[in-house]
């Protein structure tokens, strides 16, 4: 077990080093997320005001869309010089490779989320600071669920034709529960009258269960899916 975690950490740290050097994914994904938020802002705002309660939805659209971009690029790096196959040849249980890549995806998506949350709060005048710990937990749980499915799909699509289109086509319907739960929990926490913790807890429960089930399922199927 510790060998698996050590290998996963090694792979995640390698991704971190590469990203710290090029900053390519973080820069493009963040800008893309900001552009998403703006596009939705333009389409929703009338007479200078956004309708009530759209901020949470816009935030999660930004996270989900930029997440697909990050996933695609992070696995393109492994595919470009055939390095993913070498990772799979390491003498450790293969799910370690999945875990390592998952950690990298979560780190990247969290970094984008950390920038996007204050930005959305600022544009839509939301009480982000008041409910920050709750929001951070919801976003991290949502990102984990999204990345748990996304990492497996992006990894397996690596040897597929038309992988760029197929990733969002497969990923968005599959992560509908994450998006609904994330949006609902976020807007419950952002209630102008004060955070509605009762509702938020209900949705956090959905997120935790989703993360647990799909993480287990992905770890269990990873080796079989990756074998050609």
């Amino acid at each position, binding site marked *: 077990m510790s060998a698996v975690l050590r*290998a996963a950490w*090694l*792979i995640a740290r*390698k991704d971190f*080093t*590469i990203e710290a*050097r*090029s900053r390519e994914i973080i820069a493009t994904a963040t800008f893309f997320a900001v552009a998403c938020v703006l596009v939705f802002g333009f389409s929703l705002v009338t007479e200078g005001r956004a309708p009530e309660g759209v901020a949470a939805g816009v935030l999660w659209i930004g996270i989900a869309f930029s997440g697909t971009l990050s996933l695609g690029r992070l696995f393109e*790096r492994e595919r*470009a*010089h*055939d*390095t993913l*196959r*070498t*990772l*799979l*040849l*390491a*003498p*450790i*249980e*293969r799910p370690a490779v999945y875990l390592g890549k998952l950690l990298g995806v979560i780190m990247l998506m969290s970094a984008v989320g950390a920038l996007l949350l204050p930005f959305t709060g600022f544009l839509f005048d939301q009480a982000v600071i008041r409910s920050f710990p709750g929001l951070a937990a919801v976003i991290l749980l949502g990102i984990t669920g999204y990345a748990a499915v996304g990492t497996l799909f992006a990894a397996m699509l690596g040897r597929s034709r038309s992988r760029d289109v197929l990733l969002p086509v497969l990923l968005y319907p599959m992560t509908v529960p994450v998006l609904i739960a994330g949006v609902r929990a976020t807007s419950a926490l952002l209630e102008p009258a004060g955070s509605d913790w009762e509702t938020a807890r209900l949705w956090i429960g959905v997120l935790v269960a989703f993360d647990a089930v799909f993480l287990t399922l992905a770890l269990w199927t990873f080796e079989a899916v990756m*074998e*050609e």
Partner: protein
Amino acid sequence: MSRRYGRVRALADVSFTCGGGEALALVGPNGAGKSTLLNLLSTLARPTAGDILYDGRRPAAWGPALRGRFGVLGHDVSLYPELSARENLIFFGRLFAAPDLESRVAGALAAAGLERRADAPVGTFSRGMRQRLAIERALLHGPDILLFDEPFTGLDESASESLVARLAAARDAGACIVFSSHDFEHAERVATRVAMIDSGRLSWLEGTGPLRERYRSAR
């Protein structure tokens, strides 16, 4: 064993053994099934029918430790262009649990002739430099089953010579080598046996004499 991809049969009833101290060269036209065979041998792909036994045991009985015995060089170099040569070797060395990594990395950099460029990103290297580094990466953890896909591609004459020497040394030290090549002149100096793969079928190229001639007459 056989392997099919959907409706295409990549390998048909291929059967052979390769013992320690043997080097098996695979020759044949592009798309004939050489890479598929190497993928199957490295357990990245699973045969549609049949089995591959390593010292008489199936991969499932071996577990992940089996992969530590493989030294695999694919058709691409499998190096991260953003990382330096040294960083690449250290990363893969740790992942493959190579013992006394520091001295091995130093030795590998020397063998690849990259000591002076060790800390430059691999993305700035020429094709030949990358290929030399990739070979060292594949050998770093001391594997005894070498599966090399076109290892001579991109190498100049002196690098090819040194690869021949390295492979011959590994072979004589008891490793089993299976490699594909279009480079008959270098391949025949490593190989103890030569197999031709055409349309997924394997046949042996027997006899002596220059490999190029044997290949021509067999086709």
